[in-house]
């Protein structure tokens, strides 16, 4: 697994530069609650070099608006919608209610 750390505002740009749909396969977006911040991780695998997984990671505040990569990776909306629910973070254009009821309080995967 290759890890690339990025500042949050660079994410879309970098992924845009990196992602070719005939070369890379978008896997999923993940987030980890580190306690003081949330680390958002974008995973890609590679058709050309099989077995290689690239992870873009960026730290974000819980309240911060996280840019959506749906513009460059059209299939990413599902992953984003899920994260919004489970992690309780804000992602551009992603709506709540994908897996949890809309009136669910809090975010289950957060530490507090």
């Amino acid at each position, binding site marked *: 697994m290759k890890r690339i750390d990025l500042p949050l505002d660079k994410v879309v740009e970098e992924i845009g530069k990196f992602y070719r749909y005939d070369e890379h396969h978008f*896997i*999923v977006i993940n987030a980890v*609650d580190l306690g003081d911040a949330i680390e958002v991780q974008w*995973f890609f695998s590679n058709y050309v070099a*099989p077995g290689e997984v690239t992870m873009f990671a960026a730290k974000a505040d819980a309240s911060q608006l996280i840019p959506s990569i749906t513009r460059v990776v059209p299939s990413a909306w599902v992953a984003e919608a*899920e994260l919004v629910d489970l992690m309780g973070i804000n992602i551009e254009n992603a709506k709540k209610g994908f897996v949890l009821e809309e009136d669910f309080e809090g975010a289950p995967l957060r530490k507090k």
Partner: protein
Amino acid sequence: MATYYDIPVGAQHISLLEPLHFKLTTENEKIVDVEANVGYVHRGIEKACTTKFKFRQVSFVIGRICGLCSISHTTAYSQVAEKLLNLEIPLRAKYLRILVLELDRIHSHMLCLSHVAENSGFEALFMRTMKDREISMELLEAVCGNRVQYDYSIVGGVARDLRPEVAQMILTRLKELRPKIDDLIDIFQNNWSLSLKNKGIGAISFEDAMRLNAVGPLARAAGVPVDVRNDTEDLLPWKQVGFEMVLENGGDVHARNMVRLRELLVSMKIIENVIQGLPEGPIVAETKALPEGEAVVRLEAPRGELFHYAKGNKTQYLERLKVKAPTFSNIPAFVEMFKGNEYASAPAIIASYDPCLSCTAR
């Protein structure tokens, strides 16, 4: 003068095994819009795996994400945990994992095929496929001690060894299965009404499958060569046991059926190779270490790429476990697939795509 019907499919609908809800907007039974709602199966397993269960227990819980490819989940989890523990498992365990994974693929594919048949309105074929599938169920039961939840992979290896008489039984029963599968291939390919219902239905192009990052049989039916078994040699020796990728083009229900059917043959071959080349040795590797760091694992579940991410912090409890299901990746492609098809084909499309919610929503 649009006259639209909004047809609800799910949460409870006979053509669905799982609770998911589609709102299909149709015009003269032609689907023009789809709205999918999937969160019915969300139980909160990811959270529980980091707070309630110790990392060794997790392999049993994670299997309960899904009954259909519980083995894929437990294997993927075990692998990721082993990575965190820096543990190399014995080769025999690897082979046994492949054995169960492939047996499971057979049962899963056949279930899916029978479901497609049923949802296309072909009850007899459903029955037939289900009948033939029982062979794989019996084999799995013999190997793992349970028909559905195998709990076979555990952190460090596999839970039980393969008894020689079971190995023999597998070989004989598979021989029995092969002609049945050939028959099924014939029916799926040549039946007039089934091809009316399946050919050209729910098609997705190569381009779209690529663009929307489809995985699994769905992608392979559209000609996209994605199969994790092809990519990862480090964790399980796929190539050694004779894995071949199956590709079709057309991307429709029929192509997906064909991919599945031909993969059955490949799986059977793999199983035979595994049993013949099964190395001797222990089946578990013991360690006292605690998980640390982060790791990812990809594994080809019957429905496509399964992805586990885990992060450990040197305690009994993991810091984070993320499971990405094949269906999850396929949802964008799926929504596209419906449009322009008859409502009558919708159940067959759903079945052929095999929405796996239990691990999509977890």
